[in-house]
């Protein structure tokens, strides 16, 4: 029981920090320099609000004292009001339909100390009956006389909501952006001031408002659930959510100029609700958006981040999203593309004619169909491509190069082009008996190996073709080999293949080989296989990342550094580097040759859940629990500066499950539990469009090898195939009428494949553009949650 002494303000009063001016030319901070104006205006205003009781007087007094004007807590009117939580647990819930007139008579109140004193005396004398009666009497007195502490909060928020309602339809949504953060801050204030019961009423009153539910709260359901559970001061102090909401920056709101002026008028000039003004000044940052008010739909799409939208300034730095120009891998791929087009198997027009004249090393990797369609001009050096030396990348070894040339010649020449008339075939791998046991899946680039990470900390590697998994020979045998032999790499491996290649087992349902990798001591959450299938990375709940050799089938290095479960790990597109992210709120960059971290990217108070490497190996994209996507640069920042993300994107309403860069590196595609597939332009961090269609969480995604087809797998037991190339082409031609808006599924969706009871957790296009789906079969008796939902 807390009889908090009324004079002491809350120790960690968030409003106590006067706002430090960060204002740039187009950012208007509802500023500290207007405070003087405020204190002047209030007394005049008071005449209009006579019925608004003595509480406001209390506040006004404090506000008008210049030193404490902004630093005092909102609790200032609580001098004589007594926290009633302890006494009246069954307080009547407040009906917020009308604002009753309140008459306060403070003289009748018994000060809290005296009440406690009397009570103590009575208790000491064992006068139990008297205690009861006294309590009851006090309570009735109290209920009658004091207005509740939360009243100004209700009044203020109701006032603001009705103000929003008054606005014209065209700009109403701009104002409604403020409702959610205001609501949260008010609620947290109420709880922090030990008014738990009133805070609950406050919460219920607004969250159960169906009108608000549909508009304002829709994007923040996940956080509302968190807020709901914060019922005491202590819990707030512990909560990570509050940390990231209150102390991780300001809530960023973008408004058009006209709306901002109106808002300024309402909040600063009129000062009808000083409470609102205070919260806005303490926690909000308003940014002027060029031009007129944005579309309501666009605004709704971009909302959802824990701290509102993204500062425009944050996305202005240059990002080199083009592909690497001169790397061997690029060259080989390019070379093969020409080869294939000249043989005529690949009928992508233009490539064969345009390219042979240009010198080989100037050619850029262009796997993207829509780019290849373009004129010669685009074949020039991409100005957005980073220097090859920007991030040092190891060259390919000679035998790797030969391998690549061989395999690519074979596979890419037979690559299918997927068009609306020529839809991809899909081979589906269903993992049986693995429900609740299998956590993650990974398939090798050439689609021959499948790695399965289990809850019981083991990793299985399966061969998906009919070859046996190869193993390197023992050192003693290796020594005897002739090192000058050109087939040295083949000779290094034990070759059981020849014996078993007869395939006595023709049943395709049986796997031919599997390996178990043991070493972790917690559930595996992420796996990544290197391009040449030599290495496998795994990350686990035991805070470590392990590098496994897929030749000797043993653990090579254990990378330690994370201090919480590691959620994802991924190899860079050229190997060598890899990145990991963890619940310790960091993403880290590593290199397989060093046991130490190369870079640490910290993300305030948010867990980082998934990541994805940019195809040029210069950037990584992460998604964190505040539902904001961030792109980080691998290049070291300047001395002493903290690593800041180069791009940030807000718009997802729930956790993001999967991120992918488009094959040309320009677009980032993200999808997750909120069923939205969002496509972002990396050049400026803006949203291209949002594809809707799935009816449940989206778990997996892949782009076809030519980059023109997007494929998503979801928990609604379906795989959807989208014409991504067409979408980007339309966008470039300016024909996309749903720019920054929701694109309905009918427009770019080509086909839906349904599975029986398997939610696809991994989707993969093979080099020949055959679609592979992987998923764990969900036994029917586990469908209870599913059934109730539908």
């Amino acid at each position: 029981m807390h009889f908090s002494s009324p004079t002491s303000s809350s120790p960690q009063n968030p409003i106590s920090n006067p706002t430090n001016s960060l204002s740039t030319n187009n950012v208007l901070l509802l500023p500290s320099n207007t405070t003087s104006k405020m204190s002047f205006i209030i007394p005049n205003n008071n005449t209009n609000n006579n019925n608004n009781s003595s509480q406001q007087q209390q506040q006004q007094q404090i506000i008008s004292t210049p030193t404490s004007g902004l630093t005092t807590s909102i609790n200032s009117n609580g001098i004589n009001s007594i926290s009633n939580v302890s006494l009246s647990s069954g307080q009547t819930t407040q009906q917020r339909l009308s604002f009753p007139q309140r008459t306060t008579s403070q003289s009748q109140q018994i000060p809290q100390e005296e009440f406690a004193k009397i009570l103590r005396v009575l208790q000491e004398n064992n006068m139990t009956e008297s205690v009861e009666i006294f309590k009851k009497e006090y309570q009735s007195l109290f209920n009658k006389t004091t207005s509740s502490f939360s009243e100004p909060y209700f009044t203020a928020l109701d006032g603001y909501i009705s103000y929003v309602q008054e606005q014209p339809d065209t700009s109403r949504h701009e104002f409604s952006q403020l409702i959610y953060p205001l609501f949260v801050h008010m609620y947290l204030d109420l709880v922090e001031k030990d008014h738990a019961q009133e805070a609950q009423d406050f919460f219920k009153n607004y969250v159960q408002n169906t009108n608000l539910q549909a508009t304002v709260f829709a994007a923040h359901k996940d956080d509302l659930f968190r807020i709901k559970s914060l019922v005491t001061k202590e819990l707030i102090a512990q909560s990570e959510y509050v940390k990231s909401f209150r102390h991780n920056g300001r809530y960023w709101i973008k408004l058009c100029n006209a709306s901002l002026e109106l808002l300024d008028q309402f909040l600063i000039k009129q000062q009808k609700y000083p409470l609102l003004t205070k919260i806005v000044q303490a926690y909000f940052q308003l940014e002027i958006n060029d031009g007129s008010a944005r579309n309501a739909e666009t605004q709704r799409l971009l909302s959802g981040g824990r701290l509102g939208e993204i500062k425009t300034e944050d996305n202005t730095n240059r990002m080199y999203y083009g592909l690497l120009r001169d790397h061997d891998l690029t060259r080989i791929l390019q070379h093969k593309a020409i080869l294939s087009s000249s043989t005529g198997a690949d009928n992508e027009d233009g490539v064969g004619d345009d390219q042979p004249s240009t010198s080989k090393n100037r050619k850029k990797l262009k796997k993207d169909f829509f780019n290849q369609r373009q004129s010669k001009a685009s074949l020039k050096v991409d100005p957005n491509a980073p220097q090859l030396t920007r991030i040092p990348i190891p060259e390919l070894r000679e035998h790797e190069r030969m391998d690549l040339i061989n395999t690519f010649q074979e596979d890419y020449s037979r690559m299918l082009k997927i068009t609306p008339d020529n839809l991809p075939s899909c081979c589906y791998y269903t993992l049986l008996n693995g429900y609740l046991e299998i956590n993650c899946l990974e398939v090798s680039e050439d689609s021959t190996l499948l790695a399965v990470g289990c809850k019981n900390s083991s990793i299985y590697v399966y061969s998906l073709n009919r070859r046996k998994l190869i193993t390197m020979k023992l050192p003693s045998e290796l020594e005897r080999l002739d090192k000058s032999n050109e087939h040295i790499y083949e000779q290094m491996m034990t070759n059981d293949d020849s014996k078993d290649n007869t395939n006595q087992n023709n049943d395709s349902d049986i796997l031919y080989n599997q390996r178990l990798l043991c070493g972790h001591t917690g559930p595996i959450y992420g796996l990544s296989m290197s391009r040449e299938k030599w290495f496998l990375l795994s990350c686990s709940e035991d805070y470590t990342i392990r590098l496994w050799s897929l030749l000797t089938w043993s653990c090579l290095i254990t990378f330690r550094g994370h201090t919480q479960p590691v959620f994802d790990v991924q190899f860079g597109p050229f190997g060598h580097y890899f990145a990991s992210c963890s619940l310790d709120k960091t993403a880290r960059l590593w290199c397989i040759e060093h046991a130490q971290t190369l870079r640490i990217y910290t993300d305030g108070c948010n867990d980082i859940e998934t990541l994805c490497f940019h195809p040029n190996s210069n950037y990584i994209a992460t998604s964190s629990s505040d539902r904001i996507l961030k792109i980080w640069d691998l290049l070291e920042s300047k001395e002493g500066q903290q690593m800041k993300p180069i791009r940030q994107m807000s718009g997802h309403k729930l956790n993001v499950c999967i991120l992918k860069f488009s094959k040309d590196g320009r677009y980032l595609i993200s999808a997750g539990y909120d069923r939205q597939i969002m496509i972002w332009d990396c050049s400026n961090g803006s949203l291209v469009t949002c594809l809707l269609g799935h009816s449940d969480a989206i778990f997996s995604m892949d782009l076809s090898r030519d980059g023109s087809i997007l494929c998503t797998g979801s928990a609604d037991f379906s795989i959807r195939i989208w014409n991504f190339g067409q979408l980007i082409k339309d966008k470039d031609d300016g024909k996309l009428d749903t720019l920054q808006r929701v694109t309905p599924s009918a427009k770019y969706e080509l086909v839906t494949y349904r599975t029986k009871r398997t939610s696809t957790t991994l989707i993969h296009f093979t080099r020949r553009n055959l679609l592979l789906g992987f998923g764990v079969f969900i036994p029917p008796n586990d469908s209870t949650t599913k059934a109730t939902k539908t």
Partner: protein
Amino acid sequence: MTTTEQAKAPILHFPYQSIQFIADSNQCQHLTDDSIKYLTLEVTGIVRFLLQDALKFTRKCRRTKMITDDFESAMKMRYLEPIVGFRLSNGNLPFKTTTAAGLGHREVQCIDDHELQLDQVITAPMPKIPLDVSIRTHWLAIEGKQPTINENPEIISKADLTTDSLDPMKSLTKKRYNLDASKIKTSNPHELSLEQQIYYKEITEACVGSEEQKRQEAIGSLSTETGLHQILPRIVLFISEGVKVNLMQYNLAILIYLMRMTSALLENKSLYCEKYLHQLFPAIMSCILAKQLCVRPDADNHWALRDYASSRCAQMVKMFSASIHGLRNRIVRIFLRTFHSERLPLVTHYGALVGLCEMGQETIEELVFPIIRTLGDRIVKSVENPSLSQMDKTTIDRINGVISKYIPPAYRTSRSTPDDIEHFKQEFGNFYGPRLYTQVTQQRQQPRSTTQPTQVSESTIY
């Protein structure tokens, strides 16, 4: 557990009493109300935080349902010792509710912590070995079209429904695939809707119940309803199990009812019983051949059941012999084998005889004619036996009836005149030869019509 549900669900809150009880049981009886209230809030808050953390793991593992392991992981993350051993068994909470007397009869939940006997644990059968993960591949789509194979979901369309009704096994096998694949043999893959379950219950109750009116309706429904293919396996199972049980209890009436159900199923045009013959035939054959079908074999009319069942049997053979190779031969062989084993009582022989005769002209010619001689010898032998029971006498009468009912018409159509009594004696033995001779000659004089009573009249059975 999805987020939308979480937002709507009532907020988790521990009851005040539980905390008090825990405090009491930890020797902290003197806590004030306020401190307990505070503790309640605090504990609730911690558990909520843990749940939120657990949700992170659930989401990371791409599940839509939180499991206890997620909660354990969340506890580990906060450096708490995970509670081991709390698993949901069959979806039930491992708690039981009791009232604590000392606490003013409040409901308290506690863990059901019963003592285990060591020898029981040792002698208990080994639990099932958890199955290893296996991978199954199939074509989800070929060039944009999803092939209609078991692994792919059914696309519900009219065409599919009709094939379903023609061959319910198809959908059944579709469902069963997953079972076979995961090698779970015990659980049942066949889901019935509530309506179907009710229908099944009502129908089966009506069919074996006491009200004839209801039974008529139920039988009528079974023979005309078009949407029965989903519960057909159940009904067939009901029949076959029902026959098994009632055969042992000599429950003639029920057996007759079950046969009528079978008949109704066969009559139903929309049903296709082919896949259930392995269950239906044994049931029917049992009704034909059983040594005893009722409590008082000499008094009760079990003959009617045998006749009815054999006509059903013949009907089924006729219906399905086209699609099932060798069905007729197999059935006939069973009858013949029964007939030739001399240890069996005469009633069984009667059954076999009727069963064969019902098969029609061809069978009678080929198979019944040769055995009449042995039958006659056997009857002569048993008549000579001084200890001939009343039962056997009736049986012999019945057999004679059957012989005279089926054989002469068959003979008349198969052999042409003239009839020779010696020839008859030679073919059918001394016992039946002369008799048949007279009957055949009598019939030859009648016009050739209405002479083939292949079916027992229904009236005997109703």
